[in-house]
C-alpha cells in the first residue's frame, strides 16, 4: 500500500507545504521561552488554528507542532517524560484538520534536531539519537501522521540517525537540512554532499531538501546544487521569508508576499517539487505563493544572477561546490 504523500505526488507535479510555525504561534500569544509543544495538550484550539491557517492558505502539506518534541529538547522544560504524548497530540490535531479539508492534505510529523553535538566533542551518539527520534516518531505515527518530516538538521550523523528511526517506526519520511554557513550546513556539508549521503541511506527519504538557513536567495542556490547532481528524488524547498530586520524596536522579516510568490515559482524552476516557507512565512505569503505557482507557467532553470536580481544577494561568494577554498599547506602528516 502506498502512502498518502506518494499518491498525491503521482497526481501533481508540485505541492505546496506550509510556512512558519514559531512566528504564527508567537502571534497567538505563545511566550518566548515556553515549549510550543506544550500547547498540543494545553491549547489544542490554537494548534488547530495554526494548522488551519496553512490549509486555508492553500498548503497541500503541513507540519505538526512537534519540532522540539524530542527528549533532549523537552528536557529543558522538564517534560522529557511526555515525548510520546505531546507528539501523538500534535499529529491527532493535524489528522482532524486534514480530514476535514475536503481535499487531500498531508499531515507531516515534524522532527527537529536534538540540539546536541555528536561525540567525540559532544555527548550525542548514534544509538542515543536513534532512540530519541524513534520515540518521537512512534508518537507521531500513533497520532495519525501520514509521513514523518525531519527538518533543520546540520549534522549528517543526525540525519542518518533520523532515517534509521523512521525505518524503525515503519514510516515514510522526508528530510531537510539547514544550509546557513557559506552555503553549507553548520557542520560543513554541501548540497551535493547531502545528495550523496541521502542516496546511500538504507531507508532513504521520499523527498529531501533544504529549509530555513539564510534568505530565499541562498536557499535557491542550494536547490540548484541539488538539481545539478541529476538526482531523481523529489526536492523540497522551504525558505525563510527574507531576512529578519530590526526596525523601531521590533523585528520583522523583509520578505513580502509578492517576493515569496516569486521565490516559489523560481524554486519550482530550480527543480523543487515540494515548495513551502519557513521562519516569517505567514498565511498571506502562502496565499501569494499558491497563486503564483498556479498562475505562472514553468520556466527555464534560473541562473544565480537571475535569483539574486529578483530575491536579493547571497550571503557568501560561493557555496562550497567550486574549486576554491585552498586547503592549508601542512608541514607533513603524522597519521592518516
Amino acid at each position: 500500500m502506498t502512502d498518502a504523500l506518494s499518491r498525491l505526488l503521482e497526481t501533481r507535479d508540485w505541492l505546496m507545504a506550509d510556512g512558519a510555525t514559531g512566528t504564527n504561534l508567537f502571534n497567538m500569544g505563545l511566550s518566548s521561552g515556553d515549549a510550543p509543544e506544550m500547547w498540543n495538550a494545553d491549547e489544542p484550539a490554537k494548534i488547530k488554528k495554526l494548522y488551519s491557517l496553512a490549509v486555508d492558505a492553500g498548503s497541500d502539506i503541513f507540519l505538526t507542532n512537534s519540532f522540539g518534541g524530542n527528549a533532549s529538547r523537552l528536557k529543558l522544560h522538564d517534560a522529557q517524560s511526555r515525548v510520546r504524548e505531546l507528539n501523538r497530540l500534535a499529529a491527532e490535531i493535524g489528522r482532524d484538520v486534514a480530514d476535514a479539508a475536503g481535499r487531500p492534505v498531508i499531515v507531516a510529523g515534524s522532527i527537529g534536531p536534538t540540539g546536541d553535538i555528536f561525540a567525540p566533542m559532544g555527548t550525542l551518539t548514534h544509538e542515543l539519537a536513534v532512540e530519541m527520534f524513534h520515540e518521537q516518531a512512534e508518537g507521531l505515527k500513533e497520532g495519525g501522521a501520514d509521513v514523518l518530516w525531519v527538518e533543520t538538521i546540520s549534522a549528517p550523523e543526525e540525519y542518518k540517525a533520523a532515517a534509521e528511526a523512521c525505518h524503525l517506526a515503519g514510516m515514510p519520511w522526508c528530510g531537510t537540512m539547514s544550509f546557513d554557513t557559506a552555503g553549507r550546513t553548520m557542520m560543513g556539508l554541501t548540497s551535493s554532499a547531502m545528495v550523496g549521503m541521502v542516496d546511500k541511506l538504507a531507508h532513504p527519504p521520499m523527498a529531501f531538501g533544504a529549509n530555513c538557513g539564510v534568505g530565499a536567495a541562498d536557499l535557491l542556490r542550494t536547490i540548484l546544487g541539488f538539481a545539478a547532481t541529476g538526482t531523481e528524488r523529489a526536492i523540497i524547498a522551504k525558505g525563510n521569508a527574507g531576512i529578519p530586520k530590526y526596525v523601531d524596536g521590533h523585528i520583522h522579516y523583509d520578505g513580502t508576499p509578492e517576493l515569496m510568490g516569486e521565490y516559489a515559482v523560481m524554486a519550482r524552476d530550480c527543480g523543487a517539487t515540494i515548495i513551502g516557507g519557513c521562519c516569517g512565512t505567514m498565511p498571506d505569503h502562502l496565499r501569494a505563493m499558491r497563486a503564483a505557482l498556479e498562475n505562472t507557467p514553468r520556466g527555464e532553470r534560473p541562473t544565480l544572477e537571475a535569483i539574486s536580481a529578483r530575491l536579493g544577494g547571497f550571503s557568501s561568494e560561493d557555496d562550497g561546490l567550486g574549486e576554491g577554498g585552498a586547503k592549508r599547506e601542512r608541514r607533513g602528516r603524522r597519521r592518516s
Partner: protein
Amino acid sequence: MAEDDNEIILSELDDDELTMQMMDDLYDGLKEEIEEATHILLDRGWTPYDILTKALVAGMTIVGHDFRDGILFVPEVLLAANAMKGGMAILKPLLIETGAPRMGKMVIGTVKGDIHDIGKNLVAMMMEGAGFEIIDLGINNPVEKYLETAAAEGADIIGMSALLTTTMPYMKVVIDTMKEQGIRDDYIVLVGGAPLNEEFGRAIGADAYCRDAAVAVETAKEFIARKHNQMSA
C-alpha cells in the same frame, strides 16, 4: 600512532619546529600530541604564558581564520578546541602560580525566552579553546542572572545569544539595565545568534556583534587587548 619512518618524534624537534608542529597538531585536533608537546616545552624552560600565547593561541588563531574563511567547519574546529583544552589543562595551574596575565573571563548564556543553545555552546567551547575562562549560564537568562554572575565572578565579558527574532530584543533590556546601574563600561558586551546582524548590535548598544564562534574569539581578544592597553596607559 603510525609506526613508520616518517613518524615525527616531538622531543627531537627544536623549539621553532616544535611550535610549528603544535600548530599543525592543533589544526588536526590531536589532543595527546598537544599535551606531550606542552610538557616538552615546559621541560625546556618555557614559561607557561609563552607556551599559551606563542604555540596554543597562535595555533588556534590559524584554525579560527580558516573557519572564518570557510575552509574548516564546526566539527574540525571543535576537535581543535578540544586539543587546545588538553594543553590548557596542564598550563592552567601553572599560569595561576606564575601570576601570568589572564586571557579573560566570560559569562555567557541565551537570553530570557530563548531555549536555543547550540550556538552559545559552540562559542563557549571555542572561547575555552582559545584560553578564556567561561561561566556558562545555560538557557533562558533574565538580566539579573547575567549581571549578578558577572559581578560575582569578576568577569570581563558578558556574552548574550538568541536564535529567535522574538527574543533578541531582550539583549537591549540587559544593556539598558547596565546603563541604569552605571556599570555598562565595566564589561565588554558581545552578542550573537542567527537572526542578528551588525546593525542590530549597534542599535542596542553592544560592543560588538559576532557572526560566528571564530569571530567571537577574535573580537574578545581584541577587546581584552584594548582593555589591557588602557590599564597600562
